[in-house]
């Protein structure tokens, strides 16, 4: 990996951020985690990220709102949605709104990694 890609993880369950960070850092990504969306969106003003992995259902600003905001302000950032409430409607809504991928929890790490790789390959 020549370039160090930056990945942001937003999930109100701490373990999701922690584990994603642990596993993605193994592959050489730089990962920052957030427990809610507001400070995460704030952070985007300071720093460029390549991928955002966000939970769908969160208190306050939810995953769909993160997606809409990001797509409006930073259309080049890839957004991957994960959710414990894997219902079809949510998936359809998310996919229509330009989400790169959608994973039900528990998320298989291999698949998440592959999805990120695909997104970044497209990016080149």
């Amino acid at each position, binding site marked *: 990996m020549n370039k160090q890609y930056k990945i942001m993880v937003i999930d109100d369950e701490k373990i999701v951020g922690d584990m994603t960070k642990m596993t993605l850092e*193994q592959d050489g990504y730089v990962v920052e985690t957030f427990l*809610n969306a507001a400070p995460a969106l704030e952070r985007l003003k300071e720093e460029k990220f390549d991928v955002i992995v966000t939970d769908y259902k969160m208190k306050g600003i939810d995953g769909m709102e993160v997606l809409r905001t990001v797509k409006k302000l930073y259309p080049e950032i890839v957004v991957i949605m994960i959710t414990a409430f894997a219902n079809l409607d949510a998936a359809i809504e998310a996919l229509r709104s330009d989400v790169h991928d959608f994973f039900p929890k*528990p998320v298989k790490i291999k698949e998440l990694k592959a999805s990120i790789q695909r997104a970044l390959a497209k990016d080149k």
Partner: protein
Amino acid sequence: MKTLLERLKNFFTKKAPGADAKLPFKVVFSRFRQVLESNNRALEIMADMGDKLGGNYIFDINYIRKSYAELADSVFQSIYNLNSLSQNKYLYLHRIFERINDRVNRILEGKSPLEQRELVLFYRDISWEMSDQVGGKNAGLAELANYLKLNVPQGFAITASAFREFVEYNRIGEKISALKQKYRKAAKRSHKEDIMSAITFAEGGEHDTAREILNEEDYLDESFFAEVQELFRKGKLPPHLVSSIEDALDILRGGDRESCRIAVRSSAEKEDLEFSFAGQFETVLNVPASIKKVEEAYKEVLASLYSARAVSYRDLIMPRDKPMMAMSVGCIRMVDAVASGVIYTSDPNNLNNDAVIISANWGLGKTVVDGLVDADHFIVRKEEPYEILEKKTGKKELKAVALREGGIQEVGIPDSEQRKPCLSDEQIRELARQAVLIEHYMKKPQDIEWSIDKRGEIFILQSRPLRISSPAAATRNIISSLQKYPVLMENRGKIARRGIGAGRVFILQRLEDLKNFPPGSVLVARHDSSHFIKIMPKASAIITDTGTPTSHMSNIAREFQVPTIVNTGVGTSVLKHGEEVTVDAEDNRIYAGIVKELLTYRITDEIPLMELEEFRLLQKMLRYITPLNLIDPLLENFTPENCRTFHDILRFIHEKAIAELVDIDRYKEVLRNNIAVKLDVPIPTGIFMIDIGGGLNLKEKGNRASLDEITSIPFRAIVGGMMHPGVWHSEAVSMKINDFMSSMLKMPDVSAMSYLGENVAVISREYVNLSLRFGYHFNMIDCYCSDNIRDNHVYFRFVGGATDITKRSRRAELIGSILKEFNMRTNLKGDLIIARTDNITRPEMEELLDYLGRLIAYTRQLDALLDDDSVVGRYVRNFLEGNYRIG
């Protein structure tokens, strides 16, 4: 879970209508199916939960809660179904269920699984369930002693309850709050700025961020912690804690009141085997075993929880929204050490994984641990017979000794002793053996402290994961270097437990060979079996030809963290007994030889999952769920009372559900209420069939059926075997006169079954229960044979005969020997033989049933020919070679 408990109450108060009447066989069979279904569902959820511990998934607490709720529901269903099948024979299982469910729910609520208030616990009484109560280090040492049966010094734990009582008695919580207040005031200026920015965030609607800023406790610096330490040092022990410790010391001192010395060691709540700050807290060595001295040392160890180092762990030790972390303490007898040292079960620098490194010096271990001396080094190969590869004797100028008045001191070593190795070859090998045992059990390289006393007895003092500094980038790109290793198998079967393991192949021919399994080997077997639990702690990997990731065995493999690939189809034929292989159960590949790159990768690339709260929670819950204690249904401990986990319950249920089907009394009713169809084949079997669903497809209405018309998978296979050319001997074997005489005497155990009168097969598409009576012997096969491996079982019973008991027993022995060759678990008592097997694929099942059919036919009259023991072996060989001639 409330609904479950409500249902439970209803269940106990309500008696099923007509509970005493025998159930019709069709009902029995459909309830049997229900048991299988709920059991399977439970095993699948269990497998799924175990799989999450492997680190392949990102999951959260919601997943754990939801999965557990589903699992508990399925197990409850299974118990309910078994009781409706057996007409409430096993109501006690509900009690066991309730107990386990209660404990798991306590864990889910963040509590200790057991409600415990003991202030002091001896190591021999400590089980893993008490790890919250005694701390990680104590629990670990107790596990080495109680589970691995290693020699650890006698000792006891002063528990977390004792800590909390001490804190409460001295009002330390309130005093800490006051101290915080004091420091906050001192830091007022910066705090003011915090408040301002918090207000800004709060106005912007970001209340969480605002709250976080206000809760910042950066002003709690080292001097704050120093003051907290003083609170502990100056505290007083509550009187009943003093008397509990005094009583324990009394026991520990035993005969030597004067000379007994103990080590007082930290064992903090989260200072477990995996946790990052293991070994950070205080240990006070060589404390005279008097209450006054122990009290002092105890308080010193408690105070170390708030040492300067603790600042960086502040959130763990003093979480804002939870009670402060508890510190348990271990009091263990000091070993009067002649020599001591450290063992690394791997070389932490070049990650050499085939040898252990022992460092040793005279006296206590401190000089070795602190690197104060040019110690002896021994390198020992990690497999039997533990060959010593290298001996380097250091120039040992110093040693640590225990002082009579307490404390330890470093003293010079006389010149004559400095260059003398401090261990004999035998001791070196024994240390290596124990180290390898611990590493295999822990599944990670270990850093072990040990001592040897005057009598040459080895004591293990501590074992923790070896910290390995990983050459970071080097491990990631290993793919290219893997190409030089020949691949023996690739993408065969399914991964049941991920991971990487290496060792010599041990091909399992018969289950009883498990006792010869060398530690560190790779088990390769045709079928999986829950009996593998015996070797799990020492297996490097497991490969099976058949099996599923949801079987009992796979669940145990996950429990013991053994890399496992099942259902490879070819494992036993491709891999050679004794060859060295590396099993990569990450990418499903088996390499010839030991692939160091992969083993290195395993050690350095593993994510420290156990630092995550949810992983620890799930792991703790699973200890009530997946371990299997009930292995052999033939053993006396196979009772509801001995079920300790959900897995035990499920295993018990499966076995007893089969026993209900096998119940011979049912056939009276079956015969009475059903129309029997006669088996119409060229051999005179005299078998009548009763079809309870899908077992027959008659071309025309009538009461006879040919082989073609049998659609019952297992029955067809058996009949096929009976009709195998040459096995059915229709000529009568001549009976000697005394054989005939004894045949006239009816045996009481057999007469009970004589009402049968006919040979009957109760069949469905996937099931057969065949009862045969040929002359004076009785033969029964109960079998379920489907495409779902886990449902499949064969139960075989043979008893009686017309000849005298010696000959009958010889025939039983002959049958037993043959059944063992087919890998059936057999139990022989006189002329009664019971054999069973389960968990094998449909094609294998059909093959086995075909052989059982041949065996039934072949052995029909064989007893009369078994004049002496020597002929038994001959007939066994003949049968196995396909030579079915008799006489």
